[in-house]
């Protein structure tokens, strides 16, 4: 190799390295973990089989050539992981030369050489919410979950080896989208409302004269832009008779006036209750057709936030007797 060629390759490696370093990463990563094992020792998913630890040829996981059984790319750590190129959620880790799926050279997944068109090695997931990414970079797999193997060349017609064999690393990561949402109670009651004091809904339906948690809501997500927690639903109603919703200002209702409201307190995670539900008083400005935002998080840290929701009501002396009710529908939107 001439001095010029070496400089040229050095330039390219530097360029690739710099380019990858500056690529922004906005996702949280699942714990995809791959290592080189024997076929027999692999308890995970085999993505590629190699004829040796370096200067090797490749074969597909579906093959069973004995000499390829001692160096397999074995991956685990992600539920639903697979190596199917037919799965709806898959990514090609390498294109293999020839038509047999064994004794092959490889090329990157963005190459289009005809001799590599029929055989591919893939990483797949049964979960559509998993974002699978394969990258090729020099030196290391910084920014990825794991190193799959290494290539003798940078693009095509490469031999393969274990991760330390060559400087050209084949890297992978799995971003598993997650969003969880739960209500711990679907039915609460105030008992008898009175014009002489405030009542707070309780999970036993009897109500309380002192503020207490009516129910709680737990939310978590790893969505990059977090989430919003919303509620829709009318105030307490009995036919045309309505316990007036407090509206969009956080207040402590006046005893003897008609009022219905909620407030929430957040613990854990990055979620926060938003105005007007984050004060010491109460508010309610949603309707059955217009939701209102109760809480939000601007970034998903994957940690659960628990929202303790307290519900208040009071009435005047003129409100029609009867049974009052409403359904409050809570929903979460993750912003991926």
């Amino acid at each position, binding site marked *: 190799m001439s001095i*010029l060629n070496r400089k040229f390759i050095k330039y390219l490696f530097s360029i690739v390295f710099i380019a990858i370093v500056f690529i922004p990463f906005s996702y949280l990563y699942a714990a995809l973990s791959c290592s080189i094992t024997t076929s027999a020792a692999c308890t995970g998913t085999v993505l590629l089989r190699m004829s040796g630890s370096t200067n090797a040829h490749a074969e597909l996981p579906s093959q069973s050539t004995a000499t390829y059984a001692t160096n397999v790319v074995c991956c685990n750590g992600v539920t639903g992981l697979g190596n199917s190129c037919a799965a709806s959620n898959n990514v090609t880790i390498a294109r293999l030369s020839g038509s047999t799926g064994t004794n092959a050279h490889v090329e990157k997944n963005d190459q289009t050489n005809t001799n590599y068109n029929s055989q591919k090695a893939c990483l797949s997931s049964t979960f559509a919410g998993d974002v699978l990414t394969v990258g090729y970079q020099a030196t290391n797999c910084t920014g990825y979950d794991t190193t799959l193997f290494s290539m003798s060349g940078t693009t095509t017609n490469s031999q393969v080896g274990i991760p330390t064999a060559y400087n050209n690393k084949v890297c992978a990561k799995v971003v598993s989208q997650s969003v969880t*949402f739960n209500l711990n109670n679907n039915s609460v009651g105030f008992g008898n409302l009175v014009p002489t004091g405030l009542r707070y809904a309780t999970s036993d339906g009897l109500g309380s004269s002192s503020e207490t948690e*009516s*129910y709680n809501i737990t939310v978590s997500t790893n969505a990059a832009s977090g989430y919003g927690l919303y509620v829709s639903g009318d105030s307490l109603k009995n036919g045309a008779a309505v316990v007036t919703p407090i509206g969009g200002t956080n207040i402590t209702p006046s005893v003897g006036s008609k009022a219905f409201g909620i407030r929430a307190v957040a613990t854990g995670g990055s979620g926060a209750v938003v105005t007007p539900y984050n004060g010491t008083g109460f508010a309610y400005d949603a309707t059955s057709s217009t939701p209102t935002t109760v809480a939000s998080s601007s970034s998903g840290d994957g940690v659960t936030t628990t929202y303790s929701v307290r519900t208040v009501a009071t009435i005047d002396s003129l409100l029609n007797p009867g049974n009052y009710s409403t*359904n409050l529908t809570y929903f*979460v939107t993750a912003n991926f």
Partner: protein
Amino acid sequence: MRKYISAILVVGMILINFGFMSPEKAFAASLTSVSDTVTNLTASATAGHTIKFTTPTGIPASKTIVLTFNNSTATTGVTASDVTVLDNVAPITVNAGAPTTTNWGFTNASPVITFTTGTGTIAAGHTITITFNGTNKITNGVVGTTTLAISGTMADSGVLSMAIIANGVVAVSASVLGSISFTVSSNSIYFGNLRTGGPCFAQNTDPGNVTCPTVAEAEAFNMIAGTNAPTGYTISVQGDTLTSGANSIAALASNTASTPGTAQFGLRMTATGGSGVVSAPYAASGYAYTGTTSTAAPVASYTGPSANTTYSVRYLANIAALTPAGSYTTAHTYVATGNF
């Protein structure tokens, strides 16, 4: 020559990585800011969906945007008229089937909905908002994580997840009991010794053996009534006129002014506060009494819920010169009835 090429590559990569140009403008990319606001995350519930995503590459004409739900989500029955589409804030008309000029086409093969762009294009970096909130709604699948894959022949693609849970609704209940309040300020009133020379009004203190201690109209007692009964309340009085054995002082059958020297017994009321009103014949300036021991006479009422009304009750008694001497008494029973 190689130095020249390398220099070009270096400059190119710097431009790319520092944002002076983006390779995403030329190649497929992941959709960004992807979300789906589902108005009810309860399993098997119907819900509105507001799907938003930003396309880094843009969408040329005649490309498909395919929305694929999983986890048993059903889009059955959703039609083009149930959908609205915005390109940033500009509405895009959607019609069933193939696109028509700038209108997007719409097909539904549950759980896959396909839009086909018309002759217009979506610029790179624009946000598409697709709202399903028409008559026909999307039906949630089963409990678990549901994904919505956004793909098609447009260059960009993406996926998002939502949590379908057993029940996302909190049922809140309360009771309001029927109530009526009613008080009477005094249970004994006194005229003293009746007279023929002028009217005599009752008072709530015993004057002893005194002739007509209250000669001008004054409140004998008051009653306070209020209720949340939807159709209000009625106050009635039952009891005789003043009697002394077989003798009695004639009750005024209609509202009549006081005529001293004539045997008369009656009452009138005034109302303050709340919504209650005094009933005829007790509301005018004269006096009347139509109750008997067996018949209650309504004296006040209201037709809806009312805050407390105070009824000031005034009692009149006159006697004639021939009215037999004796101790005349009666007991009047007031009853307030809520009309729930």
